[in-house]
């Protein structure tokens, strides 16, 4: 087993940890953190793929590296958006989870819209 294989297993572990956190935690904020761990695991997998493709004197294949840089920026934007929505939800309703409301609030009243 090579060092890259060990890091590949770490990527798989990170994906599993992130996935568990996203599913099993209640607070949205913790879900968002877990989502980022999941994303980090996915990017790490790209890193392992890049490292395996080291050739022509380069330490790693540049194409997956470029994809990760693009992906990191997109993931940051997604996180920012999710956090703003979390904060606004909390400011307006005081909620910190996305659990179903009690039945009375389950059907949003669209009557007031344009």
């Amino acid at each position, binding site marked *: 087993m090579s060092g890259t294989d060990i890091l590949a297993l770490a990527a798989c572990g990170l*994906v599993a940890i992130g996935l568990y956190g*996203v599913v099993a935690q209640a607070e*949205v904020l913790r*879900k*968002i953190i877990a*989502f980022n761990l*999941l*994303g980090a695991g*996915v990017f790490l*997998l*790209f890193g*392992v*793929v890049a490292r*395996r*493709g080291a050739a022509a004197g380069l330490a790693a294949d540049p*194409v*997956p590296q470029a*994809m990760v840089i*693009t*992906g990191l920026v*997109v993931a940051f*934007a*997604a996180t920012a*958006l*999710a956090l703003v*929505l*979390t904060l*606004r*939800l909390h400011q*307006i*309703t005081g*909620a910190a989870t*996305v659990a179903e*409301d009690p039945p009375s*609030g*389950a*059907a*949003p*009243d*669209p*009557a*007031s*819209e*344009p």
Partner: protein
Amino acid sequence: MTATTPGGWLLVLALTLPAGAMLLGFVAGGRHAQRIALGALAIWLAIALAVALQVQASGAPLAYVIGGWQPPLGMALRADGLAAAMLLTGAVVLLAVALFGQGAYDTPRGAAETRAAYAFWCFLPALAAALAAAFLGGDLFNLFVALEMLTFTALALACLDGKPSQFKSELRYLLFALIGSVLYLLGAGLLYGAYGTLDIALLAGRTRADAPTMVAGALMTAGLIAKMALFPLHFWLPPAHAGAPAAASALLSGLVVKGAFVLLLRLWFWVLPAPVVLGGGTVLAALGATAIVIGSVVALRQERLKLLVAYSTVAQMGYLFLMFPLLAAADADAASRAWLGGVLQAVSHALAKSAMFLAAGLIAVSLGHDRVTSLGGAARVMPITVIAFALGGLSLMGLPPSGGFTAKWLLLRASVETGQWWWSLVILTGGLLTGGYVYRIVAAALAPPAPGCVARAVPRPQELCVLALAVASMLLGVLPLYALGLVRVGAP
């Protein structure tokens, strides 16, 4: 080897024009954003039409190699019949929704910029750019970026009203969509590791049925069906789509979910090896069949018009999955019919469902509520809107002469011809249940107004936009067969 075809530059234009319009509208703001968006969407429709005609005329997919860099190092844009048909559908729906949106999101001359109007007029061309990227993209990673463009746009459009009740269901939607994207990306990473490219044309026919490919396929499929709200991952959709303002609901249910659908088709019928498709297709179709039955039954029991229409989306998306096992069948004619039927279902649902959501929005504005039991009098105040709703409903049911009929008939025939007759039972049951909930609405709207019910008239131009969409979904059913041949260009 991909080569740029004549007319390939149209694909570049289809992607850059709405993106540029969004950026310009973003900077200019206010009334300018509105005019830029309307102008850009009109030109975009012309471009989409030109792409469709070119594909139809040449009988071969269009392609454009970006920057002259050949895949696998570079990337290509491609438009086969599927992409051209979806692009055209997107352009028609977006332009109709934009014209409809002039009612609610108009910024009069001299008026200050408002939040909702600014966001609406920036995100319409944004959605056009996202759809163009998703339909034309030839590279699986580039399609990931397109998926995220779709997610951000959809989320912002859904929150347009700024209603507190909306934030929770939209946040839930966002979490689902983001996890879906990440799973998709994970699969793409594995595919790159296995084949050293993410170009769809290069992957096609090259993939092996080994562990990395199978796992990648499973992860990407899971991510995409979460975004498409296939049973049992459907529960985020109805509140998220029903709570959005009418113009946004129409776009979310009509177009946004179709972006993920096109990606799923690309994955299954271009990238994954045939044995996987054969086995997995039946699983997907079984989930789709469950979605058809459960979505329709739940829709039948809804008290609110918009929620009813949203549950109907869950059911209608189910039909799209019936094509998967049929396409893998040995009978080439039947497979070709299933392909045409499936794509037509996506197109006709986009047109019909956006018409129905816009109609539901107008009804809610006019009556001040959208309780199904007290829609009485609606047909008197706004006959055009109710007719449009009913026409859309006919297409969903699959009654002739609608686009939905052609689609469902083709799927039905293909399922009998391939010996998988059980799917035809699902199609028929779904049609009956759909008839049930559409009848419920139309009958309630035709009833005399309840005493004390005050219904306001709605602007005629808005009603006509809705009618145009509904009529378009009907016209699809009377199109001559050679026009439908477009969808077959470059089919798997």
